[in-house]
């Protein structure tokens, strides 16, 4: 029986606004198996990013439960959730989110160093090499192109050998060629490392490359389908 990595049960998120309570996610339930690649698509404002944030433990739901690697995230403290993220989770964001004051190499080292590991340096070099940036490792983000920055982010995400990788429109800020390059690498590494992948995208073509697609609208999952790849 395949291992369950992520389980969302009746996730609801509402925000209090001046105009009253706004329900952004409404009773969302789904599961993700180990090694699976899942994509979430839907129109703008449908709650994709919100859902991703909850799944990764960046935020807490208003109601419903969420377990990640078997850990119930609901009643954990923020710092405990940070620990879970560091152990099991990797991130790739639309706007790269590299630390501007650190070099590419130092950026990649951060997650492992946070654990207190001393072996971060060789591993970081290896990963930068793997994304094809061995030559640029002492450059600062401001000296790299968007595509190169996203490759650094990719290397950083895989540094801790995460069990699950969350990616929010990883190619949203890149042009066609660069986007292609990143997607290719993402899926390739994902396959090789057997990482579970949760991908949020607008791009249907990209979504087709995953095993399963969740289509969202108005804070609900309105359709769940297997792709031909699966």
């Amino acid at each position: 029986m395949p291992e369950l990595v992520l389980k969302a049960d009746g996730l609801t998120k509402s925000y209090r606004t001046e105009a009253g309570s706004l329900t952004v996610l409404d009773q969302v339930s789904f599961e993700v198996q180990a090694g699976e690649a899942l994509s979430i698509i839907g129109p703008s404002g449908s709650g994709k990013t919100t859902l991703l944030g909850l799944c990764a433990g960046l935020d807490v739901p208003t109601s419903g439960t969420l377990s990640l690697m078997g850990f119930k995230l609901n009643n954990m403290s923020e710092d405990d959730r940070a620990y879970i993220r560091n152990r099991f989770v990797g991130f790739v964001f639309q706007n790269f989110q590299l630390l501007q004051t650190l070099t590419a190499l130092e950026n990649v080292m951060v997650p492992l160093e946070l654990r207190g590991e001393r072996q971060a340096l060789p591993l970081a070099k290896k990963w930068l090499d793997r994304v094809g940036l061995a030559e640029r490792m002492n450059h600062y983000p401001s000296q790299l192109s968007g595509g190169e920055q996203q490759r650094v982010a990719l290397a950083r995400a895989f540094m801790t050998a995460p069990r699950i990788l969350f990616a929010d429109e990883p190619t949203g800020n890149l042009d066609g060629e660069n986007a292609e390059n990143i997607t290719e690498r993402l899926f390739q590494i994902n396959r090789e490392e057997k990482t579970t992948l949760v991908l949020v995208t607008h791009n249907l073509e990209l979504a087709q490359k995953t095993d399963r697609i969740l289509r969202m609208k108005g804070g609900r999952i309105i359709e769940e389908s297997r792709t031909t790849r699966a």
Partner: protein
Amino acid sequence: MIEYQIKIKRERKNIFQDGWVWRMAWRDGRHNFSRLFLFVASLITGIAALVSIGSLNYSLQDELNRNAKELLGADLVVNSNKKIDTAFYQLLDSNASALAQDAEMASMVMFMNSRQSRLVKLTAWQGDFPFYGQLVTAPADAYQRMQSGEYAMLDETLATQYEISSDDSLKIGNRMFKVAGVVRKIPGGGQLTSTLAPAVYISLRSLDSTGLVQFGSRVAYSVYVKNESEKETNALVAKLNPIIGKYGYSYETVAARREGLGEGFQSVYRFFSLLAFVALLLGCVGVASSVHIYAREKREEVAVLRCMGSTGWQAFTIYFIQILFLGCVGSVLGAAIGMALQQLIPVVFGDYLPVQVTFAVSWRALLEGVVLGVVVSVLFTLLPLVNVRFVPPLAVLRSDSVLTKRFSKTRAVAMGLIVLFPIVAAAYQTQSAVAGLLFGIAIALALGGLVAIASLLLWLVRQFFPVHARFVFRHALSNLFRPNNQTTVLLVTIGLGAFIIATLNITQSSLLNQVEFTGTENQSNTILFDIQTPQRDGVVALMNEQGLPVNQVVPIVTCRLLEIKGKSIEAIQKDTAKIPDWALTREYRVTYRDSLHLSEKLIKGQLQRVERSVNDSIFVTISEGMHETLNVQVGDSLVFDIQGVPLKAHISGIRQVDWPKDPPNFIFVFPTGVLENAPQIWVAATRIEEDVQAATFQQRLVMGFPNVSLIDLRLILATVQELFDKVAMVVRFLAFFSIVTGLVVLAGAVLNSRFARMKENALLRTLGARTRQIALITLIEYCYLGFFAALTGILFAVGAGWLLCRFFFEVAFAVAVGELAYIAVGVLTMTVLIGWLNSRKVIRTPPLQVLRKEG
């Protein structure tokens, strides 16, 4: 599915075990330190102000201790206002290894080269004074020549002022003296007295031949004692204590002189150090506001770090380490700069310091500065930086995510410490808990008042700004309300500087207004005293002849109190401590007349009079205030000792006296018909407008009546003004510190809002704004800012100045509107200049560059 319910056991590391935060602090900081320039600059200005004042104080106290004996010039000095009794002198002589004497009195002296004359402190010397310290004369043998009796020496300031050279001569009293030389330096507590009353020195032997010592002349006699050891001095003091009161003499030891000078300086120091402290507090505002900006900028980075699993504390620690490091650097730099600045203070104040301060590094002041700097940087960093802990990781997805927690224990503790800080630090500075508390309250009131006025101004301008004003004016105004623009902080910091300067200006003009007696029509500005009764008509005739108004010719009789309300002075001294000793034992100079002087108003009872019918029938009036000091009322009885004759009198009324108005004025006024035959001298008052007229009159006076002295109040006023100006200079200097701090905050705020401004300008340009318009908007914005800051400070200063004048100095409130306008213009100009200099780049940047950077 198996669900783990295990509690996570995270390893908790403290800051020293967690090498990662140190590495991150370095990596993040190495190219980034310029971002904290504002922080360091604020710290440096504050610490420099404090250290410069503190270090001067310590050096001075040190010097006072080291040169204590030189301050007195002897081991012991006996003072008297009568000639020293021969038996007493012999007692001193047999208990000392050497003695010297002097007699001091006020006298006119005429400089024969120019025939000008002025009042000086005439000092007649005998013996080898000083025993300690140095008497520096030019030429070196001037003192020996003077002792021969034919020569006089004079203070260098006097010689310079009247262009006296060594072959000139002086007329003192009835005698001519040749000039032996000038006195450059003399032990005994500084050049201050010499500035207020420059001295001429002759030998004691020749004093009698001047004919100056007459009845009523006030002469101060001193005997200087040198001992071989402190033990001998103590033994002498023990012998003197039981008998000295009988003679009516007093004595002063080295320790007493040092304490007196030290205390005098200490209170001045306290005042200045509190001002310096205000500059430091402004530095704290700079520190807090720069860290606030820094923490805001770092929010995104923190979110990323938290995403990857760092704890809130770890993120906080990274930036805290950076700031702590810069705090140490800034404190050391500030302390060093303060040390350098300290060297400037004696240059300005040299004349007024009791000892010459040589350059010395005061390690204590340095250490205090550094410690205080580090404490300040930690304390004022804590509050704004603690927010970093509560940056949600969600911020990586949505940059507008709000902080997860509004209250934290750390924040509450930091807040408490910040409130305590000024109180504790001021208490330490002044060595007094009460002073600290008062200072804390004053600071709170001042800052609260400034914030209130600034907010009110901003609110008013928002409400009432003309809607139809030109676009640039409206847009510049709306820029003031840009989020994160720190407009209120700027108004308060720059306004505080303006406030200090304006308050100083207001008190100064109010105080000087009070002593500005020369300004008012017909008030006396020249006082003639020590006129003997036979000389009176002659002096009046001279005044008439010179066409000078005779405003007053009043007799003066000196007397003491023997009894109050039937109780002897000795008895009163013993029972309650209610009446101060000085009031009981002092010599009163009284006059007699039957009318009120123009400076007087009867507020209670009746005028002084003699009632012929009753037995003891003399009624005198007393000045307001003094009746409270002596605790007497209308109808109470007093017994005066008039030159050895007891005289009983009753109080008939209380006069309100406007003391500076048309002097001399008196505490007690007797009726006519009582004191006419008592020994007395006369004082005359007149008004002289022209310097030439003054010179001729003084010349004629000195020739005809050599023993009569003349005080030119204009001269004293000028000296007071000069002293005030120097004090004001230091206050301005320190106020300037606070304005500089405000401008540093401004520069930082401009730099930090640079990107927001660039974006906005790019937008304006795409909408068709020209560079000129954008520049204009920026200029107008800083004009508003400077104007409101100056207005905030000055409005508050007018309020505070009024309170100070009304309740503290008790003088009429006077505002020099023109000078305040200068202050406002100065503040405005500096603000615009700093704002403009820092904005040029923003204005010049082409819009495309900005838009590209945004992506």
